[in-house]
């Protein structure tokens, strides 16, 4: 396989070229946590909502990092999940998707700064659906977006506030995010270019 380092990658993985390893993901989340606290001048009004499936695991880690940056943050109280399946605009093009869970944190969403967390930002349609879903749950003061990987190819005017890594890709490639909670290990790989 060629072009291993085209994306600053660190090696060849059985299912593609690994572009972020466990330590890279940990560092990216720590940096994002600091950026969030800095930009919002503390963490008192924050709510972290993970988008299933892998966004939930990332949101959980991010909430714990926020707590270590700002002691006023209680990771369990600010953490929620936001399932967007029923708000998608491409349902009729795909086989029925299993509906996930939405859990709004105890503190609610009204007047809070909601940080949406997803693993890969691509067309922007998931985030559009997430914004619609949030609207039905409450009225946040602001909504911000954190993505572990931004691979480009936006189809909607949506832009992330916090990015773990910008990963310019071609449409023929696939970005796979693995997290310990679901896949047994951490890592981001890129597949499809030469296969």
């Amino acid at each position, binding site marked *: 396989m060629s072009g291993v380092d085209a994306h600053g990658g660190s090696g060849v993985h059985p299912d593609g070229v690994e572009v972020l390893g466990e330590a890279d993901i940990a560092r990216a989340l720590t940096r994002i946590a600091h950026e969030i606290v800095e930009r919002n001048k503390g963490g008192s009004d924050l709510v972290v909502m993970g988008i299933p499936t892998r966004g939930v695991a990332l949101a959980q880690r991010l909430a714990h990092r926020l707590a270590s940056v700002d002691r006023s943050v209680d990771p369990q109280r600010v953490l929620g999940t936001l399932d967007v399946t*029923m708000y998608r605009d491409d*349902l*009729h093009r*795909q086989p*029925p998707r299993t*509906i996930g869970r*939405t859990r709004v944190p105890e503190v609610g969403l009204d007047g809070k700064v909601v940080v949406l967390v997803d693993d890969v930002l691509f067309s922007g349609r998931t985030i559009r659906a997430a914004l*619609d879903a949030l609207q039905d749950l409450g009225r946040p003061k602001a909504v911000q977006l954190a993505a572990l990987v931004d691979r480009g190819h936006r189809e909607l005017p949506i832009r992330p506030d916090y990015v773990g890594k910008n990963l310019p890709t071609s449409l023929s490639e696939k970005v796979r995010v693995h997290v310990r909670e679901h896949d047994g290990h951490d890592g981001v790989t890129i597949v499809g270019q030469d296969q």
Partner: protein
Amino acid sequence: MRHLLSTKDLSHEEAVLLLDTTAAMAATQGREIKKLPTLRGRTVVNLFFEDSTRTRISFETAAKRLSADVINFSAKGSSVSKGESLKDTALTLKAMGADAVVVRHHASGAPHFLAQPGLLDVPVINAGDGTHQHPTQALLDAFTLRRHLANTSANPGQVPGVDAGVGHDLAGRKIAIVGDVLHSRVARANVALLATLGAHVTLVAPPTLVPVGVHTWPCSVSYDFTSTLTQWQPDAVMMLRVQRERMSAAGGGFFPSPAEYSRQYGLDAARLQMLADHAIVLHPGPMNRGLEISAQAADSPRSVIVEQVANGVAARMAVLYLLLASEQTPATV
């Protein structure tokens, strides 16, 4: 899954998926804004050849909560009463661009007729046909059972969360279905679905109200309600409605008198006492208080009858979502 015609067609996997989707839908119904944009632009036709306000309203609510447009078609006062055939009605619906048809018909098999290839080519959902099937009722019953029986140490009267039992079936649970099994599509749909989900079912009815061929069903039969309760100790008792018109000799003479039926097969205070601590009472409604179920049983903390109605909307939302959310292109195109 293209249509929902009978619970017999459902595999174990599909049945659990339907119940899990029902749980997800039920979770959205606790919110301030209950409406979801999922089926925006789709049209669901409620085709009711038989009066059933409750089922129709439940389907209508489910479709509207998913943002679908709903057309209610009642046979009364329409050209059906002037002799229009079911086939012509189907072709009219097809021409109007219906995306799904919910059908209630007095003839067993009418939904199967509409679902045959080349006629409507959209999902057909059986909302009760003759004495054959009522699959969405069975789904809402199974969902209610799973929710309450997932944790049997909970107090009766305490409503468990919608997530209770998600991902699980009803393996090993014991359910008694009591009453007019002969005329009951609810009983037939429930026996098939509960057996698929791994539950043990005992039908309890007077011999005159047990259908011929019941030995081929995946269930047991008892003629003695009291001994079933004391010896078998069911986890749930599902009472069936007795149609008043079937009580008299003119209506078929299935039992001597309402009082005698009530004494033998009614769920009264004494029988309520015989139930295990965690056991619950279901009824598809509308109830004949004082006949198959006493007011005391209907209003007891064990009764989940009102909750069944709410779960009915969620179950129908799940069915509409799974059948309609993805493109249902006809095989011929």
